[in-house]
């Protein structure tokens, strides 16, 4: 029988994958992919807890809202990516440094 821990493990795998993608990729679109994974792991946790610990469906509603927020985030984020590409002609994350002060590295 599948236990709660199995779902939490899958959720952990998703989260770690998302985190690794975020910190190891330099392309902004790839970073957005990682964020999607992290949001999905959170939604999976909500639904799993909703089945195993509670009798109501609040977890499902939360998962729905997470999906909604993730879609809105993807829309705005990708719009920013496109605009950024139009301006800078690159999607390298280090190019987004117009507001940075000159620090000693």
């Amino acid at each position, binding site marked *: 029988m599948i236990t709660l821990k199995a779902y939490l493990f899958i959720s952990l795998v998703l989260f770690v994958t998302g985190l690794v993608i975020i910190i190891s990729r330099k392309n902004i679109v790839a970073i957005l992919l990682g964020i999607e994974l992290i949001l999905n792991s959170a939604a999976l946790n909500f639904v799993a807890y909703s089945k195993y610990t509670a009798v109501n469906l609040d977890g499902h509603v939360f998962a*729905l809202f997470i*999906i*909604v927020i993730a*879609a*809105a985030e*993807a*829309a705005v984020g*990708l*719009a920013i990516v*496109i605009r950024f590409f*139009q301006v800078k002609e690159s999607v390298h994350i280090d190019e987004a440094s117009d507001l940075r002060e000159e620090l000693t590295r």
Partner: protein
Amino acid sequence: MSNQSLNAFMPIIIMMGLALGLYGAALLVAHLLSPSKPGGKKDMPYECGEEPVGSAWSMFNVRFYVVGLIFIIFDVESVLMFPVATIFRKMNAMGEGTYILIIFLSFISVLLEGIAYCWKKGDLDWVKSYKRSADS
């Protein structure tokens, strides 16, 4: 709407397997029957006989993209409206019709505001969008 066991989803998994099987079988039979002599001009991308210049993976047209952005917001809003639409008639029979109608209509009115905004600003136009924003 009744209680449903997970087995209700079994046919879907079976159809997924069948799709995979159909694709694999078709490719296998085609591989056995068809000749395979790659090379030469045959492998060139078809451009009506001209030599292709550069790769195709560099084209840029943002207008398709704005449509996608508008779409995804509408998609999500419709997803949220589905559960409310499902219980609409039930609530109406329970005498809560006005309440749920107000909730539903206020949600839709925000949706309409979005489409009205995009319409007014020319995001839904195909050709004009360039001109208008260049003027402003």
